């Protein structure tokens, strides 16, 4: 099913306006990312129909909104997970889960009740009162409740933002499984670069109600012209595949288009997919290397593609290409000068550390 999303909205509030024209892929997770007040939640509410705005919204070939029509929220086959779980306090966990499920006709149900319950680990909680659940448990119920409407589109508004670190860690694996197993598009609002790196396939950056960038995760994270690159933990996330395991040293070689990296072996079998995150500050550059004389395991041949000033005048941010894959390196301006870095120059990449995200 083609679920490609076309969203064009214009809405004005006192002191803020949102104006977007977006095409989002019909599968995988699209992250709407930006600082608070950038309009990401407003955009999500426009897509849901909770916020009325002028514009147009197509999901595949279904028109949800255009100049002459507006499908009301309850008639849109979508699911929405809010920042606070908002469970109905007068219903038990089971009845909360059934609330949306009951309203879907039998033929349209594609998610089985018991499966969703098992999937989010809710078996023990079904008879409980929502008030007696922890924040993380509540959010898991809200996610299952949303999925049980068999939506064509899943909208999530910072589902982890209101949770403490432990609950976050508790839910992230469920969201990652969602990402892997669900065949519907997800639009995920967040201001956390870490969640973007873990979950997103497509990244939309918003600022002041406008779209700054929209593109595949790796490409967009490696762009140097966006304000996010001023952040301390700027880096690139990569989809990779395990191609080799070194059991003696508990390492796995993860291949991505253009190269491969040795990473911590997380027990993923050869052929399994994983997601890596390489921070710019963990990458250094060299014109020549002698592998035997370095503690650094990951050395990759690359080409400099772009070079910009960083937040502090002592720093430079360098974009390099490893085959087709872009990576970022942060180094001092002095080193950049000493190495004679210019676009097109071949260079060695030394990657000090790689985070394995799933």
């Amino acid at each position: 099913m083609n679920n490609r999303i076309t969203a064009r909205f214009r809405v004005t509030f006192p002191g803020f306006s949102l104006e977007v024209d977006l095409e989002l892929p019909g599968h995988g997770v699209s992250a709407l990312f930006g600082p608070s007040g950038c309009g990401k939640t407003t955009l999500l509410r426009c897509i849901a129909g909770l916020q009325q705005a002028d514009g147009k919204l197509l999901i595949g070939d279904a028109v949800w909104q255009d100049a002459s029509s507006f499908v009301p929220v309850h008639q849109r086959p979508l699911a929405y997970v809010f920042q606070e779980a908002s469970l109905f306090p007068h219903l038990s966990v089971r009845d909360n889960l059934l609330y949306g499920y009951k309203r879907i006709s039998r033929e349209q149900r594609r998610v089985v009740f018991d499966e969703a319950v098992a999937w989010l680990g809710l078996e023990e909680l079904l008879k409980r009162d929502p008030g007696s659940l922890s924040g993380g448990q509540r959010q898991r119920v809200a996610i299952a409740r949303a999925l049980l409407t068999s939506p064509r589109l899943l909208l999530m508004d910072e589902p982890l933002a209101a949770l403490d670190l432990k609950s976050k860690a508790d839910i992230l694996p469920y969201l990652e499984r969602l990402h892997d197993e669900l065949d519907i598009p997800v639009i995920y609002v967040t201001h956390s670069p870490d969640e973007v790196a873990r979950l997103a396939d497509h990244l939309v950056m918003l600022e002041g109600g406008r779209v700054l960038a929209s593109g595949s995760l790796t490409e967009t994270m490696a762009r140097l012209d966006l304000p996010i690159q001023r952040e301390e933990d700027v880096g690139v996330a990569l989809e990779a595949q395990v191609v080799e395991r070194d059991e003696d040293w508990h390492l796995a070689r993860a291949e991505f288009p253009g190269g491969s990296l040795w990473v911590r072996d997380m027990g993923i079998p050869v052929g399994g997919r994983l997601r890596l995150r390489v921070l710019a500050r963990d990458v250094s550059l060299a014109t020549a290397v002698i592998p035997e004389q370095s503690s650094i395991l990951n050395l990759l041949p690359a080409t400099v593609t772009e070079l910009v000033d960083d937040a502090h005048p002592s720093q430079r941010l360098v974009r390099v290409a490893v085959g087709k894959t872009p990576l970022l390196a942060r180094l001092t301006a002095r080193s950049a000068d000493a190495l004679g870095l210019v676009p097109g120059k071949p260079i060695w990449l030394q990657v000090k550390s790689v985070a394995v995200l799933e």
Partner: protein
Amino acid sequence: MTFDWQPISLTLKLAGISTLMLLVVGTPIAWWLARTRHWLKQPIASVVALPLVLPPTVLGFYLLVLMGPNGPVGQFTQALGLGTLPFTFEGLVVGSVIYSLPFAVQPLQNAFEAIGERTLEVAATLRASPWDRFWTVAVPLARPGFLTATVLVFAHTIGEFGVVLMIGGNIPGETKVLSVAIYDHVETLEYEQAHWLAAGMLIFSFLVLLALYLLNGRRGRFFSS
């Protein structure tokens, strides 16, 4: 002494019917007031609250004029062939409903406002239509408001005196309710009858309130398992 039960049964009938009608009339008004941002919200809320501050005789006087043979409401009811409402049981019901309207609307409005927009939005994203959301989310969550409104309205109607006297008079079996009967007994120095009625009313009112408060107090422990 022969005890006259008629005022008691008449009062209970009046209070019961008025309470039912007030819940039917008051709920949509409260819902609208709780959710709207219309400029008419404050004016309407003020009109609804008027009986709180007006002396019952003022309200009763205007109702008498409006519903009387020459008033607009009276002309209308006459045109329908219903006669006029003052000095009838139906007239008392209309008077009680108007007089007790704020006691129904205000607790309901507070309860609806306490639910908040988010919970209803969640229900909408779970495919519930506005009507469906109202019955499956708003009404159950506003339950304490409904209980409070019921108690207040019922008690208030039982205790009503001024409006009844203005538009109902003192017709046995038709408009002679408890409060008027007690007044009558006192006027004619029949203190014993007055005592029986007054004490009965006191105990009954207390029991009704107690029952409803107990019911309300138990709410929220439904799921403790």
